[in-house]
């Protein structure tokens, strides 16, 4: 049980020193790595200038981890990688092995415990995602549930590295988009579709009205002096929920109308072309817990058309760039609607200003 602390804790000690976490083989070859090879999905081999070989075994995780699982990781690391492991920015765990004889036994144990090995090279990587209904106040959909349903459906691609290029899918449960969701091959994000409901008494009591007004990207919020509250111009509101973030009395959750929008063709790396935003493919699919069937079917379709048509080495956005968006919508069998044409502040450069297009 907790007790009142008797001595003052040290503050500002900074994070643990990374160097103390590194295995001997890394300390000896720090900054001296020469190249790496992909042994098979989920296994990398790094070779240093003096011939040392480091093996990485990557396993996917659901991000939400019990300490029971983390202790299992620790035990596996003790058994196979001298107690050394790391996590990736996409919620994978990676074991750092110096003995190649340990690779297969480690993989066998990981798989037996239900921790799949894969996600390297031209595979589907783990879905980076947010907190959702498990812990966030502004989630327009759950995060872990839809991610689990999509990864179950696309599981084969996590284990195979023969996709046209790497495939990174990301998920955010509201427009705050914790994580680089807006720059992914396929991104899905929780959205609202209705204006906030204003609790005037709550706004008057608990919110800084100038902050609420300033929070609106479209200037849709005006003061309502009579009620010491605010009013929302429904024609201007595009349901971003930013006012709700600064003022809990601007409730924007709508279980019937909230749902998920799907964007495609973004990327993070600078390889070949620079980082790019994902673009709208599907404006809304409904929230259908527990397994978000419509979402799963929609994403499966988006993945399949790329796998079928893209050339070797083409990321999702590069493929669309080559075939053209008009062909993308045709191939994806998706309706093109007024939602797809930007009407926010940087819209104009997205309009076509040439006679060069396809039918």
């Amino acid at each position: 049980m907790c007790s009142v602390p008797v001595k003052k804790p040290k503050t500002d000690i900074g994070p643990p020193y990374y160097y103390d976490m590194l295995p001997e083989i890394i300390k000896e070859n720090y900054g001296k790595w020469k190249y790496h090879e992909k042994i098979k999905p989920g296994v990398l081999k790094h070779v240093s200038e003096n011939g040392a070989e480091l093996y990485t075994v990557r396993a996917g995780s659901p991000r939400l981890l019990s300490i029971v699982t983390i202790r299992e990781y620790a035990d596996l690391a003790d058994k196979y990688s001298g107690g050394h492991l790391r996590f990736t920015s996409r919620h994978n765990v990676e074991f750092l092995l110096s003995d190649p004889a340990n690779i297969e036994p480690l993989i066998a144990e990981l798989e037996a415990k239900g921790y799949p090995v894969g996600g390297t090279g031209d595979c589907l990587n783990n879905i980076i995602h947010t907190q959702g209904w498990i812990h966030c106040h502004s989630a327009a959909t759950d995060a872990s549930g839809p991610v689990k349903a999509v990864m179950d459906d696309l599981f084969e691609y996590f284990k195979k590295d023969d996709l046209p290029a790497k495939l990174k899918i990301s998920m955010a449960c509201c427009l705050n988009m914790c994580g680089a969701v807006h720059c992914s091959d396929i991104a899905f994000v929780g959205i609202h579709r209705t204006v906030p409901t204003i609790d005037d008494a709550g706004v008057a009591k608990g919110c800084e009205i100038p902050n609420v007004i300033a929070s609106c990207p479209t200037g849709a919020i005006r003061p309502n002096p009579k009620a010491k509250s605010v009013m929302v111009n429904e024609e201007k509101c595009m349901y971003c929920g930013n006012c709700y973030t600064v003022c809990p009395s601007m409730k924007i959750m709508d279980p019937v109308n909230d749902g998920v929008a799907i964007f495609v063709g973004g990327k993070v790396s600078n390889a070949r072309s620079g980082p790019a935003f994902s673009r709208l493919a599907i404006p809304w699919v409904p929230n259908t817990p527990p397994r978000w069937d419509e979402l799963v079917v929609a994403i499966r379709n988006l993945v399949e058309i790329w796998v079928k048509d893209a050339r070797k080495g083409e990321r999702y956005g590069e493929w669309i760039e080559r075939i053209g968006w008009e062909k993308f919508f045709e191939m994806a069998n998706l309706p093109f609607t007024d939602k797809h044409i930007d009407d926010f502040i940087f819209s104009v450069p997205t309009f076509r200003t040439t006679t060069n297009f396809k039918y």
Partner: protein
Amino acid sequence: MSEKKRPLLEELKKGPWPSFVKEMEKSAHNSKTAELLDLLERSYEDKTGHWKHGGIVGVTGYGGGVIGRYTDLPEEFPEVREFHTMRVNQPSGWYYTSDALRTLCDIWEKHGSGLTNMHGATGDAILLGTTTEHLQPCFNDLSEAGFDLGGSGSNMRTPSCCAGPARCQNACIDTLDLCHNLTNTFQDYLHRPSFPYKFKIKISGCANDCVASIARADLSIIGTWRDAIRIDQEAVKEYAAQGYDIQGLVVDKCPSQACTYNAETQEFTVDNPNCVRCMHCINKMPKALRIGKETGATILIGGKATIVQSAFLSWVIVPFMKLEKEDDYAELKDLIERIWEWWDENGKVRERVGELIYRKGMREFLKAVGLPPVPQMVKHPRANPYFFWWPDEIISSASGDAEAEAAAGAEVEK
């Protein structure tokens, strides 16, 4: 607790991908975690979340690192009435020993739900779910064991970096050391919110940008080089011997047409002055091609997600900066402080630095932080004739009328 009570979550225990519901059940001997499962089942029934905005909770001496979280159904779910998050500053590159992880688990078993995120999007190890009274004792135990909290609120958020030179041949800078150094140097900005809004720093060792720095960090530090790509022609021949399509998969995809391959001599060349160092050829033939030797970093600013003024990708402000361990990264730190000073003076509440630059203009920003404009900063120059002149750029009038000149200058300033 009977599983039948949660029929919707039960569906998410099926399938080959690891199940977060099973993770929660592993820690469900903890009464809070058991009730979290019930609350989540309720969210699945209602199709809405059941959490309220954070209240002000924290640990002594810090203004961030703890996120207050309360359910909006406290009567029905009293165990998660308070269910706060603690953000624990990760070691650079997320490298751990098994013992360090066990220490973290033991502390969280004692003080919290037993649930974590490894890791959150910013980089911290997230400890998910504890009560107000446990916050300080938990922090004391963390601190005693060598762990510190990360950032939250309007402060410098926990910096993060890629795997770096510990396990990558492409690391042009020591991302791990730089991340550790910046975090320690700016501890005060990390723990005590004093900025207009959040400020994220992410460090990638090369242009592959494995931590998505350009996409989501206010300050993006991307390793690069200035000299020639190193080529091992023998290794090129090995790729050719294996039947690798060097022309099609490497040369034809070079964005600046800087690569050539002679199929007869099996020789690969790079026109280095015309190479943009995008990493493509190096990624495709890692055994044959290596980054240059004169390394440093490109510094970019302004990246952020959608809210409020649209998402921004970070913009180049310094094409190449040497980042030297020996001088404690003085040039970079100095630039960061000048950026913060300008943002602090000019930023509105909840205005990210990129939005401030968009509002005030890049020329104001560059002048304020003392950076010279260079062509590497833009895709192309402006296409409109609406530009400003600084007063000292205007030729003095023939009359020599100082007042009129000043007025003209002021007019231009507006």
